[in-house]
């Protein structure tokens, strides 16, 4: 047992303990804070598993935007904390036994994984030079499995439409009900004036460097969304109404351009989302740039929630 394995053991034990505490905590906000800590620890675990792109995504989305979303919901529901009765003991025991069985089955799967492990890494690396990218994960996301990425973006948009559809009829097309920090507070305004320029630079850098180093459109887009949400929370900008043209344009420009590049593949390279040789990298970078912008706006609006006040005409 060397030092690295001892560190991994401590990290894994901490991860499971905090996950268990998240489930068993009594207060909602305490459970969400524990979930946030779990997300950041999970980012470290991803680095230990040599998956730095996934670590960036987990820290940004899992430990960042999800926790913000849940905290907003928890503060809205604060008056219902003590309402639900705890579950009965028989339910707890049977559920516990069945979940322990599921965990044991999955642990057995991990134990009996085939050795040597099957892998697609040589195939991925062999064709990476043609795409002009240096980051194999970006190659998988935008060249080998580009259809998955396109559909993922469409799923984000569908979730946004689903969230919007939960508005009341009279508030349709109005302003999302993001609870901004209503008190005039110089500290939060100071943060929202100083951090977004740095954050926007970091977000664009993460997208740009994602072609050859760990990074990418999703990670950069999430940082951009976080900066936008910070500015909205500090009331330096009004939360935009969802029927405004520029909001809708920014939302769809990413997927529309991606689909257009896909159909271009029909014309010049005889398959959907196939890239013509030599033009792969510029096309991928253009698609990623607009995708980053769209992802930033989509994630920000997903956190902002359904419209609640009618747009003032």
């Amino acid at each position, binding site marked *: 047992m060397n030092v690295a394995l001892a560190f991994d053991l401590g990290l894994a034990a901490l991860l499971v303990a905090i996950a268990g505490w998240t489930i068993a905590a009594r207060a909602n906000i305490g459970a969400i804070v524990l979930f946030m800590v779990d997300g950041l620890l999970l980012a470290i675990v991803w680095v230990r598993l040599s998956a730095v792109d996934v670590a960036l995504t987990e820290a940004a989305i899992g430990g960042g935007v999800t926790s913000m979303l849940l905290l907003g919901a928890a503060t809205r529901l604060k008056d219902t904390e003590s309402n639900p009765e705890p579950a009965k003991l028989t339910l707890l025991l049977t559920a516990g036994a069945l979940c322990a069985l599921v965990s044991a089955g999955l642990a057995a799967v991990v134990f009996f994984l085939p050795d040597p492990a099957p892998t697609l890494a040589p195939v991925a690396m062999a064709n990476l030079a043609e795409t002009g990218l240096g980051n194999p994960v970006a190659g998988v996301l935008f060249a080998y499995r580009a259809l998955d990425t396109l559909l993922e973006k469409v799923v984000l948009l569908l979730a946004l439409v689903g969230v919007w559809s939960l508005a009341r009829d009279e508030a349709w097309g109005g302003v999302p009900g993001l609870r901004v920090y209503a008190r005039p*507070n110089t*500290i*939060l305004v*100071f*943060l929202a004036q*100083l*951090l977004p320029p*740095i954050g926007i630079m970091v977000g664009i850098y993460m997208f740009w460097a994602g072609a050859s180093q760990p990074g990418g459109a999703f990670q950069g887009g999430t940082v951009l969304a976080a900066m936008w949400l910070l500015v909205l929370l500090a009331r330096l900008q009004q939360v935009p109404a969802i029927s405004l043209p520029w909001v809708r344009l920014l939302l769809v420009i990413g997927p529309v351009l991606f689909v257009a590049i896909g159909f271009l593949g029909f014309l010049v390279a005889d398959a959907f989302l196939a890239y013509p040789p030599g033009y792969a990298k510029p096309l991928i970078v253009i698609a990623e740039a607009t995708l980053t912008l769209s992802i930033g706006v989509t994630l920000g609006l997903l956190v902002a929630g359904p419209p609640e006040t009618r747009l003032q005409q």
Partner: protein
Amino acid sequence: MRLALDIFTLVAVSAGGLLFMAGTAGLLRFPDTLTRLHALTKVDNLGLGLIVVGLLPQVDGPLAALKVVTVWLLGQFSGAIVSQLIARAARRAEHQQ
């Protein structure tokens, strides 16, 4: 020279780790929110700073060193702002009781 730099890294990172432990002890043992925030911001500033300074001999190139120092500055900045916000919220909750 390499050995001296490695020893410096070990000493600085261990000192930073000790400060983190002290901050955690403060978080667990101090009586109320304001004193706990004080313990945590000490950790943010000096503990993270020692770790960053200790890691500087290990990075390759001045650009990577600049990135690591920027991480420290951003950590200090956000820690200070968030401590202020939490302290104001705690003071307000105290007054309402």
